């Protein structure tokens, strides 16, 4: 079995790389695939917190690299889903403790036993980024519809194209606010796609539920009602090769908005 190694990266910090990694990983595992999440953000690890596995970590990526333990010992199984494993980053070290070759070796080993290896990349374009992309063949570039994030994503795509191993990359647009797009205060999904000239793999709406799920240590895909959760599940299915239509995220939540939408739909039908 040869697993797929996907790096989740963004350039800019705070756009939702870690949240995306945790949710796509959980969604893929829910669909029956065996998944390993690798946190390469050494010194500023968060992925364990999002999955609620903080208290179970004994060995970390650095311990594996420095051969203090076997790779299998460092993999922490998820509480709910036995298909999902986490290889945590060390909190007490820094990015220089793992080199690109070492991470590549680890991903090569993991490939044999798991369907998907998702690598959570640190922010920035320095050594940490270069290490994280070393073992990967695919990339997901996370960005938000803000000029600064899009600029950084553009830079990252340039670096990914120049990198040897990366065969394909897709865009994931996070924290989209349909209402702000309507009032032209925010770039639309199409705008971002055009600027970056990159195919999108998903559009995730802004969701306050993300904050609570992060604090509770439970990925939002476990919450079936959440729109963001649904969007992440769709992303996971698209990664898997399914052709899933994009979610209609500009569904207004209040009754007045729903009525307006319904009426405008009727008008359109009348005109036709």
């Amino acid at each position, binding site marked *: 079995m040869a697993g797929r190694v996907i790096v989740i990266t963004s350039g800019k910090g705070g756009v939702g790389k870690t949240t995306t990694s945790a949710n796509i990983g959980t969604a893929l595992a829910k669909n029956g695939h065996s998944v390993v999440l690798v946190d390469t953000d050494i010194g500023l690890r968060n992925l364990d917190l999002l999955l609620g596995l903080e208290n*179970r*970590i004994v060995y970390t990526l650095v311990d594996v690299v420095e051969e203090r333990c076997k790779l299998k010992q460092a993999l922490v*199984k998820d509480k709910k889903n036995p298909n999902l494993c986490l290889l945590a980053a060390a*909190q007490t070290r820094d990015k220089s403790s793992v080199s690109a070759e070492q991470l590549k070796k680890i991903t090569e080993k993991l490939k044999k036993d798991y369907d998907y290896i998702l690598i959570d990349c640190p922010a920035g374009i320095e050594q940490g980024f270069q290490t994280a992309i070393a073992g990967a063949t695919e990339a997901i570039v996370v960005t938000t519809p803000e000029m600064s994030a899009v600029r950084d994503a553009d830079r990252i795509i340039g670096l990914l194209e120049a990198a040897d191993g990366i065969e394909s990359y897709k865009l994931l647009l996070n924290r989209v606010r349909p209402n702000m797009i309507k009032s032209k205060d925010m770039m639309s999904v199409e705008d971002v796609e055009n600027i970056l000239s990159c195919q999108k793999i998903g559009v995730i709406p802004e969701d306050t539920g993300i904050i609570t799920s992060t604090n*509770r240590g439970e990925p939002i895909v476990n919450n079936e009602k959440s729109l963001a959760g649904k969007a992440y599940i769709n992303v996971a299915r698209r990664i898997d090769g399914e052709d899933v239509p994009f979610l209609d995220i500009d569904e207004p939540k209040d009754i007045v908005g729903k009525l307006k939408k319904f009426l405008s739909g009727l008008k359109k039908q009348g005109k036709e």
Partner: protein
Amino acid sequence: MEQFLNDNMYVIDLGELNTAPEIIFELSSILDKDEVKNKRICLKLGNVDLNQAQLLSIKSLITGIDSTLSCVDTKSVETEKVALSLGIIVSNISAENSMEVAPTMPYKMAEELKEDITNTETEENEDIVEESDISEENLNDVIVEDNENLTSEKIEGASENKEDNEFIQQNSQIEKEVLSEEPKETINSVIDNKIITEATKEEIQDELDVIFGSTPSQTVFYDMENPSEVYEEREELTDIIVPEQEYTKEDIELESFPTKYIKQTIRSGQVINYEGNIVIIGDCHPGCEVTAFGDITVWGILSGIAHAGAGGNQKARVRALKMNAIQLRIANCYSRRPDSLNTVYVEKTNSFTPEEARIVNGEIVVFKMND
């Protein structure tokens, strides 16, 4: 054939083979590898019935490469008998689970311990059955082994530790090292254990022990404040069976350790290693690691990882005003914070009940101050 490596133990899985010659052939090819040499070997056999001669030849094959056959896992009754007659341990090796080292046991609060004791009187403890899929013996074996390695590494990495110490020293200039050499002399002069308990406890015990330990002076103090409440609690808590705290070599060791005094908040990513006792005046935030050969005392909220008795001292304790540690490790025991205790922030109030973690019957238990 799958081979699983548990640090200094090597598991060879021959469970799929059905005849003795097959096993010997396969085994001899595996034993050619360098990695198998100088190891304790565990054999996983399936349903095969082996006689004494066959098992002896297998054993001699293994001893021929400077390894020892330490245990055998078999489904056959015959083989089990023969193995026992040859003095080989027969146990269930669960290959997948034996790799898992993540602490599966959450640390217990003293009240839970009390419940456990009442439970065990009536029926088997459910917690243990749920938590350990593998036989307990096995789990213990693995954990102990891992910890042996862990501690030995700690000693090897002593030079690293010193670097870390320097780092901390750079950060805070208010540190002091207190060398408590006085107790050594008194202890050496006293021969009888009983005398030590009475004579030196009064002299040696520092302020913290007076506050945390259940010494008579403490009870008097609390009796005077609100006698009724305390007495009720104490009567309830007499049900807890805590092994009698004898004054042992380990206590002497703890008291002879030097003490590091740190007056700062320990933040995420900071590491403190010290071959002695550590006293921290301040909070320990999540993501920090405090490792001491002796006791760890935190005058604040402990939320990171604390490892007391890293040199193997079972009597070492972790004390804090509020115990919220992600993981507690004492000597070679691991425990994690119970998931039910998922508090993101600890509210900082003026009314903390100091807590102390120590080993009771091989498990880490957190006691409230008055327990």
